[in-house]
């Protein structure tokens, strides 16, 4: 961790695309979460709170949570009071994760992390209401952009490793993850152990390759295309297609951090500042 000037600041206009994409994904997730909140208020439905002292979901809480979430997500997407909307959105998501274990999902957790990182990385500096009003500085901290990149690679690496583990432990779970209804359903007869194994192996290879290739300027464009195709295929073929669409949109949006050129050394940054 010595090669990067961690405390330096860089012009990261491409982070705006990440903010917009994550904001839109958060809006979609907010609609789904509001439905879950509403379901949780139904009498007779199980509650599994993470901590007992949190309030049980009520109609008033559903209204407040839904309104806060959707307003903050919309504000974040358009870059209106980005730091405030990002903070409110991340806090609402964190509170949701604490409220009940049934509200957890990988994409909600990922969205919460990305909102925190984008807020900290000043992703409202460009293509936003804030920049139009002259409220937001353009520069972003190097560490914020680096952590966004690292988060994408971490997700891919552990998604691949957990698929390796699952392929050995239970091929049935992998097979049951595919879509079984609708126009894109895979017929039962096609899902042979060989095909499931081959798809799992392909998914592992693609995820590990993306985790590395996105860091390479030479392979970045190819990795972006492969990543887009991969997430589109997951959305089309998996039983949880809508959830994976939100997951894919969040991941692809975060690719924007790889298009922000990071300074390699402090001396190079100083040189660039001197030239400017």
């Amino acid at each position: 961790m010595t090669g990067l000037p961690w405390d330096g600041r860089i012009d990261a206009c491409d982070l705006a695309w990440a903010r917009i994409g994550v904001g839109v994904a958060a809006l979609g997730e907010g609609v789904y979460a509001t439905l879950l909140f509403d379901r949780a208020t139904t009498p007779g439905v199980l509650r599994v709170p993470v901590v007992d002292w949190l309030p049980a979901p009520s109609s008033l809480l559903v209204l407040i949570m839904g309104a806060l979430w959707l307003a903050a997500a919309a504000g974040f997407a358009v870059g209106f009071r980005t730091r405030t909307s990002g903070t409110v959105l991340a806090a609402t998501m964190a509170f949701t994760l604490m409220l009940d274990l049934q509200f957890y999902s990988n994409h909600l957790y990922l969205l919460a992390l990305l909102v925190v990182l984008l807020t900290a990385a000043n992703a409202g500096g460009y293509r936003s209401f804030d920049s139009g009003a002259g409220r937001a500085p353009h520069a972003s901290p190097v560490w914020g952009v680096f952590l966004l990149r690292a988060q994408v690679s971490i997700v891919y690496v552990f998604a691949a490793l957990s698929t390796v583990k699952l392929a050995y432990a239970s091929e049935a779970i992998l097979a049951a993850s595919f879509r079984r209804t609708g126009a894109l359903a895979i017929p039962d007869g096609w899902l042979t152990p060989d095909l499931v194994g081959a798809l799992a192996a392909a998914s592992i290879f693609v995820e590990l390759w993306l985790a590395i290739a996105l860091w390479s300027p030479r392979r970045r464009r190819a990795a972006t295309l492969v990543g887009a195709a991969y997430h589109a295929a997951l959305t089309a073929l998996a039983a949880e297609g809508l959830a994976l669409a939100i997951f894919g949109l969040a991941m692809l949006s975060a690719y924007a951090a790889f298009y922000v050129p990071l300074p390699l050394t402090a001396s190079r940054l100083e040189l660039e500042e001197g030239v400017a």
Partner: protein
Amino acid sequence: MSQASRSHTRFLVSAYLLLQVGIPAVQLAAPDPARYGWQMFDAVADADFVLIDDIGPSTIDPRDFVVASRGDLDAASYLPAHLCAVVPETNEVRVLRSADTIPSVFPCAAP
């Protein structure tokens, strides 16, 4: 920027990376599917729930009693006590997981 501020930044970056690598690494050893481990595939394990009351057995759909069916939340662990509490006259709950041949029996405590 001061030296203290630089150290603070490095500490935060290191802590974030440690957590984001450490938690999924630990979860790799946990039973599937584990939360916070970035596991993409988490099919919900099937289980049949049968309520026994004084009249006899009745099969219920567990989805009627949960917010969402999740693979990482074993309904067979959480649901029996809840069913005892919300379905009147239930004496016991029998749960047969798809992988098992003998149902697990959860007696309801007397009210």
